[in-house]
């Protein structure tokens, strides 16, 4: 099987997965609202009630407005149509980026706006911390593997295993405490006014807000990367070609980085591609602890407010990102390790 056929096969799997995910996402959020607040109403009525604005916009005549919105909800959701048409409508809406409106504000507050606002913050936070965690984790892993069984190795292992089993929220809280202890002021997540500013004050405020969540996620991420890197490096160091390289009299540095590391890099590359995919889902707890205005916090707020359209949209985006990341990881795997393709 050639590389092209391998990619083609993975592509087919990916498309099938995407379809399954979309269907799952659709039906999950058909069922979930029922469990909470439908009180035996038929789904259409329940959805109408749920999505109705709590307050009509100023100037609207109450009765007519509500009736009009009801009609619009019914049309938008396709309540008159058969199930298949409804699902089709949902998929069509996905392609046009129409995720509906936030709960209680039908027609005024589209979900996509909330996501567009929050996404850059999350990408900045998780992107930077993932890169940092991988850089540090790989470095420490190589060092530990080179000094296997020595004090450095055991020390790294103990500290990072402990860091790894600290709950993220506890780690975040401890960092908050440390900051309070150092600066002698109470912790403020992101000062609201910062985000309204422009230019340098905005970036300064953003960096301040980013600092602790970034540290938290980096510390939380190092452990896993370190353990993987250390394990694969140890495997690689025991291979025969390393013995050969050493026997040739190559310097230890060359042996480690040119021979061993290049062969040990594969699992880390796939892990990195995967973790980029999990960018959105990993941030819920950290963002909530720090009040950082990203997608994770948006999801938490959506859960608290039972904002189903927003939950559904976030789910879709998260799942699609993971599917794509898995696909990329597979392809990378194929490129880096020809054995996978021929298998």
């Amino acid at each position, binding site marked *: 099987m050639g590389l092209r056929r391998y990619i083609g096969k993975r592509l087919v799997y990916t498309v099938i997965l995407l379809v399954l995910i979309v269907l799952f996402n659709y039906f999950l959020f058909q069922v979930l609202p029922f469990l909470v607040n439908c009180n035996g109403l038929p789904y259409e009525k329940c959805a109408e009630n749920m999505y109705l604005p709590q307050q009509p916009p100023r100037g609207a005549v109450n009765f007519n407005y509500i009736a009009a919105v009801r009609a619009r909800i019914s049309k938008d959701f396709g309540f008159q149509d058969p199930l298949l048409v409804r699902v089709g409508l949902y998929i069509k809406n996905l392609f046009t980026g129409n995720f509906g409106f936030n709960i209680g504000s039908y027609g005024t507050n589209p979900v996509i706006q909330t996501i567009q606002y929050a996404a850059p913050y999350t990408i900045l936070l998780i992107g930077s911390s993932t890169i940092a965690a991988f850089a540090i984790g790989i470095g420490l892993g190589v060092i530990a593997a080179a000094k296997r069984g020595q004090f450095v190795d055991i020390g790294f292992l103990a500290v990072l295993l402990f860091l790894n089993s600290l709950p993220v929220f*506890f780690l975040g809280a401890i960092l908050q405490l440390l900051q309070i202890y150092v600066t002698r002021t109470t912790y403020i997540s992101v000062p609201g006014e910062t985000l309204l500013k422009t230019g340098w004050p905005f970036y300064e405020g953003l960096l301040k807000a980013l600092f602790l969540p970034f540290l938290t996620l980096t510390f939380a991420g190092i452990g896993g990367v370190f353990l993987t890197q250390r394990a694969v490096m140890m495997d690689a160091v025991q291979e025969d070609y390393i013995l050969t390289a050493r026997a040739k009299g190559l310097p230890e540095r060359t042996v480690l980085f040119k021979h061993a590391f290049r062969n040990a890099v594969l699992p880390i590359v796939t892990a990195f591609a995967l973790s980029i995919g999990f960018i959105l889902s990993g941030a819920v*707890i950290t963002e909530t602890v720090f009040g950082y205005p990203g997608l994770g916090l948006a999801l938490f707020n959506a859960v608290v407010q039972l904002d189903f359209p927003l939950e559904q949209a976030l789910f879709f985006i998260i799942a699609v990102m*993971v599917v794509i990341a898995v696909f990329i990881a597979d392809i990378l795997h194929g490129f880096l390790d020809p054995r996978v393709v021929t298998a």
Partner: protein
Amino acid sequence: MSSQGRNLLSDLKRLTKLFIKSKIGVVGLIVIVFFVVLAIFAPILAPIPPLDHKVAAAYDVPSWATLLPEYRNVAVDQTPIATIGFSSQQEVASWDLSGNNLTWSIAPGVTPPSPTVTGSLYVNASLPANATANDPYLPGGVVLFSMSQSFKFSGASPPAFEVTTNLEATEMTNISRIYANFIIFTPKGNYSLSSGPTFSATLGSTVMILSSNATKWHPIDITSWLLSTSGIPSYTSIGNPSELVFNQTGDYRLEMQVMGVRAGGATTGMASVYVSSMELHLDGGAYGILGTDKLGNDVWSQLVWGSQISMMVGIAAGLGSVGIGAIAGIAAGYIGGLFSDMLGRVTDFFLVLPFLPLLIVVTSIIAANPLLISTVYFWIILVFITLTWPFIAILIRAQTKTVKERQFVEASRAVGGGTGHILRRHILPNVMGLVYSQVALNVSGFILLDAALDFLGIAAHGRPIISWGIMLANALPDATGDPIHSYVWWWFLPPGVSIALLSLAFVLVGYALDSIFNPRLRAR
């Protein structure tokens, strides 16, 4: 059968021997056993209900912390200093009762019948005609009667004190309102506490109506409204009154004055009053094994009882998930073909599901449903199992496949070994190691996840339950916002460290088991 039993026993012996050799495994096991003992013997180890408010003063440091220089001057909790409740006649007799035209009696179970009434004091008192109002703080009040008791105080200055009593007027003639003032006579100067107008019992003619809420027996609870009797005649809030009042050892006297306000135009008045459960608490600054939290809950008790949820969810979900995963994995690995392919596809699907968000959303839905909320942890376990078993199944499938291809299996089949025989004697023994280590690793993950759900307040949904995650969530605002109480380390650290330790312990045991069953790792 017996030979098989002996085999199992010798296997177990061998396993134990190998396990004891692994240092990290033994350390992990000790930690796990410690927390299991905590969870099981919670009623013995922590008899104080974890959600009982005010077992001591709020924000008490642990009693052993007084050994530290920073807390050297803190008094260990001493509550109550004088038991002055009316549980028996003797205790009433020790009170000095004085007043105009006073009769009093023990009133066991008189109307209104209520458990707290039993043994209360029933006082009939009348106001002298045309007596001048003598309450310097609340104009119009006249002392109906007063009761006092002396006590010795010898100890360090407490950070807080509290006088509580139940006071109820049952009959009032020409009196519009009844309230109480407390006076503490100290060796140096006198201080009084007034219950203030908001706490006073009012009633029209003879029907009892309490001003603030529906509960008939009204605890009067004053800590901060402290006035010097020789000082300012207005309600002043003093930051730390107890340092002012209990600043030396010696003879003190607590007096409660029950005041009546005459109805408009009347010259005399009469009232019948129940008094019970009068107590003076001097709170210490240090309490118990782990101190107290913001509401005066016992932190040690919360830690012990909170371990139950983490343990239960972690172990149940770990066993369930690995159990189902193992069965599916072994079946898929042994049978292979379509079944194996299907398992692979299912796993692919589960892999891309956003695990934590899905968990949060589903749990929040369960918690918001009144029918499901009481069994929310059962559902959490179920969701954990549902979302994770495929990952374990493919791991075990891979292991089963490699074992199945080994020569000894082929040999066994060649000499006529049946499927059952091969599964039992060859596949299972070689797969079980992976299964054991997976249970340990998964329990660790589930403990962290459950703590996260509790921390976010999703699982509990405001119900009165306690777990480590909930403790952390409660402590966080104080820990990060209140430098006055030294960042409440005794409240904030134990649950977090416990979560980390327990999950780490399971990881260590998992690694130890892994290296036992995986000789390649053991060689290292």
